[in-house]
């Protein structure tokens, strides 16, 4: 009878940590701990002796885990190893999702896989949310620039808003550019002229 796997999630963002933990709980019965403050990380990993450590691929503290992973021998307990060596596809999926896992050597692959699958799904979700947020921000910025360009045209040429937008769109089409790019140029040029 296997004992419950113990998992440590290293994550500073509270919201994100909760979602990852929820995802893991759905996947199985695990003992999960979150480390939010990375000071003294090496010592704390050694104290907790986890079977698996999950951490953002881009977290600088990963390099500390790398050092633990190569320093400890296979018979010691806090031996974190990297993502399962036998499954290249899983490794790649994890990297693409932005999650890295340090796994105790000798842990059977069928015990690791559900944990990783759950982590990969949650990390993917966060990547998507981040991308969406960035896209929304960019769209908002563009909207603001276009509004300013319209206002400049309306004032300079005495036309209404609809005509101003039509003019921007026609210019953009003629030049093979995006409306936002033309608006940007116009705002910049108007700034120089006033």
């Amino acid at each position, binding site marked *: 009878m296997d004992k419950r796997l113990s998992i440590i999630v290293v994550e500073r963002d509270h919201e994100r940590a909760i979602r990852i933990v929820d995802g893991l709980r759905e996947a199985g019965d695990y003992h999960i701990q979150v480390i939010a403050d990375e*000071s003294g990380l090496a010592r704390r990993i050694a104290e907790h002796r986890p079977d698996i450590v999950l951490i953002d*691929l881009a977290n600088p503290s*990963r*390099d500390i885990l*790398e*050092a633990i992973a190569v320093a400890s021998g296979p018979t010691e307990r806090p031996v974190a190893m990297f993502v399962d*060596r036998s499954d290249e596809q899983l490794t790649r999926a994890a*990297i*693409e999702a932005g999650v*890295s896992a340090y796994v105790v050597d000798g842990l059977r692959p069928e015990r690791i896989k559900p944990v990783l699958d759950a982590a990969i799904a949650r990390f993917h979700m966060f990547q998507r949310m981040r991308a969406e947020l960035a896209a929304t921000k960019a769209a908002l910025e563009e909207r603001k620039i276009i509004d300013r360009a319209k206002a400049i045209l309306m004032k300079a040429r005495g036309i209404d808003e609809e005509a101003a937008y039509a003019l921007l769109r026609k210019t953009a089409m003629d030049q093979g550019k995006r409306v936002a790019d033309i608006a940007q140029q116009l705002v910049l040029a108007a700034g120089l002229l006033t």
Partner: protein
Amino acid sequence: MNLVRLRLGYVPLTDAAPLIVAHELGFAAEEGLELDLVRVGAWAQSRDLLGAGVIDAAHMLVPMPIAQRLGLGPALPEFDLVMFLSVGGQAVAVSEAIAEKLRNNGFAFDFADAHSAGLALCAATGGRLRVGVPFPFSTQAELVWHWLGASGFADGVEVVTVPPPMMADAMEAGEVDAFCVGEPWASFAVERGIASLLLPGRAIWASPPEKGLVLRKSMAEDQPEVTGRLMRAVWRAGRWLDVAENRGTAAEILSQGAYLNLSSELTERGLTGRMLVSPAGELRVAPDFIAFHSGAATFPWKSLAALIARRIALRHGLPVDPAMRQAMACFRTDLYRQHLRQAGADLPGASAKVEGTLTHPHAVASEHGRMILRPDAFFDGHMFEPPFDR
């Protein structure tokens, strides 16, 4: 012209300069390349992204591709190092508590003599020291092990990994007594009043190869055209960087928000070798603190691969001879010759040398006649003879 797009990973450090300059000053565009520079947070991330094909090439610590070859990393496709990006550029720092003891003992902080600094440090600390390095497989780790080992430190030394931007914090929190790190992070700790600088890396070993341009072996071999273009763009950027007048401009470029996001005054120290070694503002000039081109700085000597592999193998209980041979195979002097000859690089007659013999610049036979090699001596006279029969 349609530019070929390449994604390059870099860790924000002064020695990422060749990649950043290749992009910013158009050396890449001249070769028909559009570089997409991807800033990464951890060395392990750079390695993983390269292995998974998310990036095409990486700015990497020279010992990293060697450690991968020796099976000390995750299962990823094989990596090759095609050229060095920088030599030197590291600094050793001690906490202000230790610095004060050293001063009280009459130590002058000359920022030059590794022998006297080592003895003074050993006396001031009783031979017990926790030292931070950026990664277990780093030139910094090799410098620290070699220097302290030859300075009378024995079992009292603990070398721990601390990411460079966290080095100052770790010292402030008392987690490390000393560290060896690439610029600007040593100067950053001095600026915050946390550390004093003891030595440049080059005082320990005159020619410590620091970063390399690393590609997946499959890309280096199957896409020679693009690989060659990238190498030439980066090599020309290094040549530009080694013109002394350009270093100030380089500091301005590197300091921008997208790259180091620090003041250019701070970045400039590690590029000009004019270092403030203490929070009190003592200036020391370290000539040739970092090199990107001169004296065959970018040539990936196979003897250096063997030297580093031997040291790593000994520390990790691996058989030394196979380790040296595996490492030599991933330093691609053949590709360096093939791709950089046409850019006008002078090429040494041999691809390996006895390391540690040169205390001064030295002329050797090359394809153009004679070329000047950099000094490569260790402070304690250590020499290393690589296995020449390949």
